[in-house]
């Protein structure tokens, strides 16, 4: 993303999430989004096949196991 695209993205994503961004917080948010975008470039450069699954798992919950 270019800096301008990043600004547009922040505005659109914040609106979609109903997350108001104060003017004082905006430069920091853009700085950290740029940092995250750099890390995204690194993970996106890793060649994965459709069979490479996520690290997270899910366990079904049975009756009597509803507690957190």
């Amino acid at each position, binding site marked *: 993303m270019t800096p301008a695209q990043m600004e547009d993205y922040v505005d659109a994503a914040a609106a979609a999430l109903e*997350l*108001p961004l104060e003017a004082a917080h905006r430069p920091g*948010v853009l700085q950290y989004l740029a940092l995250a975008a750099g890390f995204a470039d*690194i*993970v996106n450069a890793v060649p*994965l096949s459709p069979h*490479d699954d*996520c690290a*997270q798992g899910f366990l079904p919950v049975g009756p009597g196991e509803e507690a957190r």
Partner: protein
Amino acid sequence: MTSIAGLLGRGAGAMADAVRKREVSATELARASIERIAATDARINAFTAVTAERALKHAAAIDERIAAGGSGLSADLPLAGVPFAVKNLFDVAGLTTLAGSKIERDSAPASADAVLLQRLEAAGAVLVGALNMDEYAYGFTTENSHQGPVCNPHDQRRIAGGSSGGSAAAVAAGQVALSLGSDTNGSIRVPASLCGVFGLKPTFGRLPRTGTFPFVSSLDHLGPFARSSRDLALAYDAMQGPEARAGTTGEHDPGCAQRAAQPVIGLLPRGLDGLRIGVLGGYFSDNAQPEALAAVDRVARSLNVTESVELPWVEAGRAAAFLITNAEGGARHLENLRRRAADFEPLSRDRFLAGALLPAAWITQAQRVRRLYAQQVARVLGDFDVLLAPATPCTAPQIGTEWLEINGRRLPARASMGLLTQPISCIGLPVCTVPVWQAHPTMPVGVQVIAAPWREDLVLRVAAALESAGVVSAPIAAP
């Protein structure tokens, strides 16, 4: 030094031995710990609450039990009378669980203790308080704007590290013999390194997190700090084992593997026999200053280790850890970010806000890369039982430091303190951080002793061997 002050300096195992032999009472130890906190914490700022009344009541109960005698006290009370404290993201019945924040001050007090706190108290340990930390555990420095920074007990102009800064500092200052912290990306290992104490980050899923305030559930670990490998092992053994289920009302950590306990205390004397040990190079040497590399070199020489190895996809693993942390942390706090962003810690607020906005595709890719990276590292661990790496890029910087120079690169200091820990916790490997003192003129720096999943015994065996050889140690800071 009085005998009680001497006992406070000897560590958890020695304290418990003395209490069981009735050479000192649990009540005397609790009082000594509370007095030391009162005498030192204005300078250290490790504690956010001191639970003196509760401590003295529990200590009296331990003393009564010891006085009643009977067999099995050693097995039933391995931590008899040992004062300890917990990072303030652990629930303590009657206290509000702050998780380092201003926002949670509005929450109701906890109605029950965290599971690991219950287990340490069942082993005879005595809770004396709750400890300062980075807000919601999102930081490596414990420069907490709401509570003030935790100061490094060995040089109070320097940071203690974070996010479990209070936990490491309280042990280094001799306020308690044991403490508990959490580690998502390095929050046990970084402060252990900078404060010169031992820290154990067990395998992801080993210890139940029930009754703690989560940061990133898919990466959060809990573990102990102490001044010796034996004390770490005593605490770790007391906390292992599956959670009892209490029907539909019982809480349960869905991220805990609920494995049967595998006690390690009896395995420590086995030493290094037959262990294949390597030093992590490449990324881990490129991101460390000379004193951190000197610490690893000193440990490696003591162990006669000459082989170096690199982890495949390590930078991608670290990138995955950053993205998962940023997104999961931001999403967890989204409602408060919407309503009261100004009440967040200024040092992490904008990072939380940005994290809430990250594209889902980045996070899914990060989780897939995390698994691939874990598979690649598992192949390396087929050739090595134990790996060594620096725990932090440098010794503790001054409080307020903004930038670090590492191999000619100018990096943001606060985020960079976790450069060397993130790639290891991202894939859940057990690590004991051991403190090395001879790599810098006055300050300690830690070395990560890393093993395959579920092999905490190996990292503690190596730590114990290094301690016996006099290569690592955790002296109490001068008052």
